[in-house]
């Protein structure tokens, strides 16, 4: 509890938000705050200026245009879970959003905050990499779009540079996509110890592992059968971190289990 002193601004437009972020050293965007405020309570990290995005309704929109589902960076997990657009165009997103933390956190936490914080145990980074999402970022110099695979740089680090703002996440729309997600958590609904997302397309299968490295780890196994998946995980020579919940060895094993389960789920769904 008890934060360090911090400056606060609540812009009324995306442009103003970007200006604020650019104008102040140590400024950070405040999205849902379900990670950032917590970290500030521990005084582990202390931004100098918070730019509160919560009144920027234009960042909350979830829309489908053509074959793209676009989620505003400020779309909450609750919104994603209840969105008919998500339901018809990439339902796995709603399913996974429903697994994050708890009701209160889902009411505030946002997709943008989730990916920008990139805690290795988060659900969405591996999922979005698996789905082939892309992130749209705007700064003073204009807008750019980065594939999810290149978006994550390290623990709590992404390509969103100082003075930039993540605007939205785009996911290819595919109502019947063969997607899967599996996790092992602390208790029924705690932090992930290991997780994996899978996406099977016509010509390939893509598995993305969370919790085993600073950034999601992408695997492209040769087939969708359990053995191919296990071989791919074994072949990745993972060096996952050890902590009180899992030794490196156990976490490596769980990564394999999650990968197989995510693919099984994807296979079942794709049928």
């Amino acid at each position: 509890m008890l934060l360090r002193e911090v400056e606060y601004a609540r812009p009324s437009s995306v442009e103003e938000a970007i200006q604020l972020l650019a104008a102040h050293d140590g400024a950070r965007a405040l999205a849902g705050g379900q990670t950032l405020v917590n970290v500030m309570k521990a005084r582990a990290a202390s931004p100098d200026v918070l730019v509160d995005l919560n009144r920027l309704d234009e960042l909350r929109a979830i829309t489908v245009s053509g074959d793209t589902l676009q989620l505003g960076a400020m779309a909450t997990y609750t919104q994603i879970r209840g969105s008919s657009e998500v339901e018809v165009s990439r339902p796995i997103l709603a399913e996974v959003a429903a697994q994050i933390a708890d009701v209160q956190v889902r009411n505030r936490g946002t997709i943008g905050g989730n990916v920008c914080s990139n805690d290795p145990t988060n659900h969405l980074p591996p999922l979005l990499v698996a789905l082939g999402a892309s992130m749209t970022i705007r700064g003073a110099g204009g807008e750019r779009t980065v594939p999810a695979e290149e978006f994550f740089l390290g623990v709590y680090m992404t390509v969103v540079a100082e003075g930039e703002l993540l605007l939205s996440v785009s996911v290819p729309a595919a109502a019947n996509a063969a997607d899967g997600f599996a996790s092992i958590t602390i208790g029924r609904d705690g932090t992930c110890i290991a997780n994996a997302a899978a996406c099977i397309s016509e010509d390939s299968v893509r598995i993305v592992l969370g919790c085993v490295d600073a950034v999601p780890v992408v695997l492209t196994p040769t087939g969708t059968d359990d053995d191919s998946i296990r071989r791919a995980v074994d072949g990745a020579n993972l060096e996952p971190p050890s902590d009180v919940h899992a030794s490196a060895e156990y976490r490596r094993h769980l990564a394999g289990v999650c990968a197989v389960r995510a693919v099984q789920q994807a296979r079942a769904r794709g049928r």
Partner: protein
Amino acid sequence: MKVEGTKELSAPRDVVWKVLNDPAQMAKLMPGVEGFEIKDDRHWQAKVKIPLGLGGLRMTVDFEKVEEREPEFAQLNAKGNGVGAIMNMQTQFHLAESGGGTSMRWEADVKIAGPVGAMGQRVLQPIINQQVGNVLTALEKQVSEAAAAGTGGAEQGIHPASPEAYEADPDGPTHNTQDQS
């Protein structure tokens, strides 16, 4: 937590040695240095802000050179204070000539104390790996520039917030162990 690895550098050993043993050049290797003060030839202090996306971890780090055997071995202790945690790091470098370049073997033992540090154990290992990767990348640049310039010191260090400093490094940490209790 112990991390160790080896790194092949194209510069000659004496150049690498100079970069590693010059506090001012060392400062440029570290992530997010905001202030730097040399107290004497064995002690210096850096104020750093480790650039994490959540807002940066501010620490004051005191360095002490414990042992050196030019041009092959140096041991450095660092003690960081801040963010409700105390960091202790012991680092060792072993330099060997390797062709025209240098083969560097390094070890670091990092310990974090305090409630906030304990909270961060979960992500400590990936963060340290990442920061070590950054330092090694910066070192590579620094020594190649130093070698090109004939003596020590590029003008510009690596700006910690610039993305290119964080490119994944294939020669990053090759082995990690964390004590499990």
